[in-house]
Structures are given as structure tokens and as C-alpha cells.
């Protein structure tokens, strides 16, 4: 219906992991580029070169999984509330400090806090949505962006006040232990894989899987999907959309929190640590299609790979440059993101 575009607002939330076949094409292209690097670089003809290439692939994949997880939270929030949450990174930092307190102060194993931190952050996110975001629903994009920006300033400086800027870190005692016959860090064809990074990746996938199952199978998940597709429609079938929005913001924050827990064992923590994920998450969310949860995960992995392989091919340049090149190319070739369902 040519005139119908403006009338009913159809949301964008997509909760199926449906990888278009051509994404594998992109992956393949990246692999080919990598191969090409091994041909042109003088290093690469040596076995060491192959190791580097392999390392870039593994690292990109592993770190990309974490990016994907962070971006999934952002994408979920966008899909249902249609706001770009600038404070996502700050929530991530907050979660990391929580975990640090639990691990360093209370002495809980950092991974065990996966049962605590996301839960607490869910409450924080839900409360923030209710108090600050909800009154601004329906306001223009720029107001919401600035609102969440102000939130991020608030959170960062509260953390500064509470914990000072002193860098903190949490390290696993067993990072270099051997589990059965497997010795960490793992070495595969010369490539090194540290335990916490494997856990972050696998954990990230697990959280993603849990999120998918929750959204696609549970009753609340169903309500979230409905609200993310059509708010009025959802309320007309009996979904309490206001409550779903509170819940979704909490859930998105909890997902970020889970990512925070997973990366803490290999990053150093400061009040500004989470912000570094913000910009990448924006990129990934657009790449995956705003509101497309599965797209965010795959987009994250693609960006991780792009960063690493781009870093090999353009050693002098910032690793972000190839990322932004891909980003802009995607925007123009497929404005709805790589995973943006086709029809306008």
C-alpha cells in the first residue's frame, strides 16, 4: 500500500538468528584477504606468517563474540524502545565495578558473579528506564541521545567518586592452569588462546543463546517481541507495553553486564572503560540492523574479524579505520543493515 508507510509504525525488533548466506561471503572475503596478506607480506611466507594469520582469525572471532554480546543489549533496547542508548557503555563499566567489588572485595570467583551482577544490573537498568527514560519516550531522537549521554556522565563520575580513577583488575588464578590434558593458554598451530578469552567467547554465545531462547520461547519474551514489532498492536493483545519497556531496558543492561563480567578477567578497569565499547556497538548495531538481535551477534563477530584482519593489512592505520569503511559501505549499500530483512 503505497500510502500506508506513515500510518502505522511497525517496529524493527528481530529475534531470530537467520544468517543470510552472503554474510558467509563476507567472511570468506575476509579469509581471502587474510590469505592475500600471507602472500604479499614478506613475513607471511614463513610459518610464522601463517601463525599470525591464524592468530588474527582467532582473536577476531573471540573478541568479536564479546562485541556482539554488548551490541545485542543495545540492539534489543533499540528494537523495543527505539532509543540509541549512549549510556550502554557506562552501564557496562558499572557492572564491571560491581564484579570487581564482588571478586576482589568479597572474594567470589569472577565467573560466579555472572549469577549476581547481571541481576543487579537488570534492576538498575529497569529503575533507570522507569525514572529517566520512560518520561522521554516519544521525544525526538536527539533528546533521548542527550539524556542517555547525561546518564553516562553521571555514572562515570559517580564511579570516579566511589572508586577513584585507580586502574583495577581481576585476574583468574587458574588462567594458566591445565585442565585435564588441555593446557592454558591454548596453542593451536602456534596461535595463542588465553582461557579468559575462550570463556568470554563461549560465555558470550551462551548468554546470546539464553537471550534468544528467552525471547523466542518464554511468555515475557513473546511480549517483548510483540512490543518490539508494534507497540499498539501489542497492547491490543494484552501486553503491558510500559512494563515491557522497563523490562527490556533492564534486560539489555543485564546483557551488557554479562559482557562486562566476561571481559573483566582480561581488561583493566577504569571509570571510562566501558565507553570504548560504545562506538563499536553503534557500528555493530547498524551493521546487524537496528533491532536485529541476531544481526548484532554476527555483526560483532564480523567487526572483530575486520579489526584484526584490517590491522594486518594496514599496519600503520588505526584498527578502527577499516571498521568505519565497512560501516559506511553498509549504510549505503544496505541502509537497514546487513540483516535488514529485504523489503523497505
Amino acid at each position, binding site marked *: 500500500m*503505497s*500510502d*500506508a508507510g*506513515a*500510518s502505522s509504525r511497525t517496529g524493527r525488533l528481530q529475534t531470530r538468528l537467520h544468517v543470510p548466506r552472503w554474510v558467509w561471503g563476507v567472511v570468506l572475503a575476509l579469509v581471502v584477504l587474510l590469505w592475500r596478506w600471507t602472500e604479499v607480506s614478506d613475513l607471511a611466507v614463513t610459518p610464522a606468517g601463517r601463525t599470525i594469520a591464524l592468530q588474527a582469525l582467532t582473536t577476531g572471532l573471540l573478541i568479536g563474540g564479546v562485541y556482539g554480546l554488548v551490541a545485542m543489549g543495545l540492539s534489543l533496547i533499540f528494537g523495543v524502545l527505539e532509543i540509541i542508548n549512549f549510556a550502554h557503555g557506562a552501564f557496562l563499566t558499572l557492572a564491571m565495578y560491581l564484579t570487581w567489588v564482588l571478586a576482589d572485595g568479597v572474594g567470589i570467583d569472577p565467573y560466579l558473579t555472572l549469577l549476581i551482577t547481571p541481576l543487579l544490573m537488570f534492576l538498575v537498568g529497569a529503575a533507570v528506564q522507569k525514572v529517566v527514560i520512560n518520561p522521554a519516550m516519544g521525544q525526538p531522537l536527539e533528546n533521548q541521545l542527550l539524556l542517555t549521554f547525561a546518564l553516562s556522565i553521571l555514572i562515570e563520575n559517580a564511579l570516579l567518586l566511589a572508586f577513584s580513577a585507580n586502574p583495577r583488575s581481576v585476574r583468574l588464578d587458574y588462567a594458566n592452569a591445565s585442565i585435564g590434558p588441555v593446557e592454558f593458554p591454548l596453542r593451536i598451530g602456534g596461535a595463542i588462546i588465553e582461557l579468559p578469552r575462550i570463556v568470554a567467547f563461549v560465555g558470550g554465545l551462551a548468554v546470546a543463546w539464553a537471550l534468544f531462547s528467552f525471547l523466542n520461547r518464554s511468555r515475557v519474551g513473546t511480549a517483548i517481541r510483540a512490543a518490539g514489532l508494534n507497540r499498539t498492536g501489542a497492547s491490543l493483545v494484552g501486553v503491558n507495553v510500559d512494563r515491557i519497556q522497563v523490562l527490556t531496558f533492564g534486560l539489555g543492561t543485564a546483557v551488557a553486564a554479562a559482557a562486562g563480567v566476561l571481559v573483566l578477567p582480561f581488561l583493566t578497569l577504569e571509570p571510562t572503560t566501558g565507553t570504548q565499547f560504545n562506538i563499536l556497538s553503534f557500528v555493530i548495531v547498524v551493521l546487524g540492523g537496528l533491532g536485529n538481535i541476531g544481526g548484532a551477534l554476527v555483526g560483532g563477530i564480523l567487526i572483530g574479524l575486520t579489526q584484526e584482519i584490517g590491522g594486518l593489512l594496514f599496519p600503520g592505520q588505526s584498527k578502527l579505520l577499516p571498521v568505519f569503511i565497512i560501516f559506511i559501505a553498509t549504510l549505503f549499500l544496505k541502509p537497514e543493515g546487513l540483516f535488514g530483512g529485504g*523489503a523497505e
Partner: protein
Amino acid sequence: MSLLEVTHLSKSFSGLRAVDDVDFQVEAGEIVGLIGPNGAGKTTLFNLVAGRIPVDTGRVVFDGEDITGWTPHAIARRGIGRTFQLMRPFASMTVRDNVTVAAASSSPRLETARELADAVLDRVALAGMADEFAGALPTAARKRLELARALALDPQLLLLDEVLSGLTPAEREPLLELLVEIADEGRALLLVEHVMAAVMRLSQRILVLHHGQLLAAGTPDEVTSDPDVIEAYLGEEEQLAGS
């Protein structure tokens, strides 16, 4: 030579042939009705003529010039005004400014455009609401605003998409008179309308579109008695109500 000549016009949306090899002409000063069931392709046809969507095949010649593939604004300035089925006012601008935009698009002086706009508003009986925000207008006034905006282009051809629908018969009457008056100035009107009584009264000719194809064309009486048209569009009762 006719004012508007449409030949072999077709448009598909992912397989669906919304407009399918349509030919017709509109003469200067003529009022032509365009009817057909929902989804027949009427609005799509308007959109093709007005350049809002690109044509697949076929040609649109207006006033001797091939305007196929032109942009909507160029076509508007060339002399084809249109209204939208779902109205599209500039909500936070005043009624006068809404019309001034159209008037100014072909007049370099804003003052002249304002004067023209006021004159048009007078004609459509909106002068009293000139300083209100367009977004706050009731439906009937909005319909007239759509018409005023199209008129401000000083068009040779007006494409009117259901300007009467939603108006009570009492509200319709003056508008019908206005349309006749506009046609008397030598402007052609092509109107899509479901209010059969009005279509019958106004139109010299009626085109019937069905499944994107021209099902019938002729005088109102010819068309309304065509069994195909009754079958596809009017239905037994509507036919009675209409006549």
C-alpha cells in the same frame, strides 16, 4: 493533441502488476473520473503520472512534453498538481504558509507567492483559518488545504485522490461547485473518488481500473451500466445508491 497522454504504462511491485499496460488521455478543461475497487491501482497510477515512483514501461506525455522519469517537483512545476489520499500537510506551518510553499516554488518573489496563496485560500474558503497550524485542522479543512496547495501551483492538470471522501454531503456541495469552476478555467481534473454520486455528476468521462488494467471507459452512464463494472466494483446495491 491531448493535455495528458498515457501510453502502455505499467508498474509492478515485486511481481504484483499494480498498473498493467494502461492507455488513456485527458483533454484540457476535461473532468475525468477514475474509479475501481480497492487495490485496483488508482493511487499507483497517480503516483506514476506525478513522478513519485518510477515507471517500469510506458510513457507519460504532458502538454506535448515527455515527462516520463521526471522528478515529482519538476512535474509539479510543469503544471500537474496533486492531492494525497492520506493527507500530507506541513503540520507545524500555518495554513497560509502551506499554500505559500507551493505558490513560491515557481515564483521567485515570496511576496507575490503570499498574495497568490491568500487568493487561493479565499477560493477554497480557508481564508478564515489562514493563520492556524495545518496540523490542528479538522479533516474537512485538511482536504481543502490539500486542494489549495495543488491549486497554488497554477496547474493545467489536477490529480485529486479522494478529496471528497469523508465529507458530509453538506460539506461536499460547495467543493463540487468549486471543482466545476476550476475546470471552467480550462484546467483538467482527473479524480479518484468512491463517492459515486459525485463522480457521476462531475465527470464527463469515467475510467474504470481493475487489477491494474483499464476495464472500461466512457460516459458515466455507459460505465455504470457496464456489467463488468457492476461485477467488479459497484455491486448491485452500490449501483442503485449511486444512481
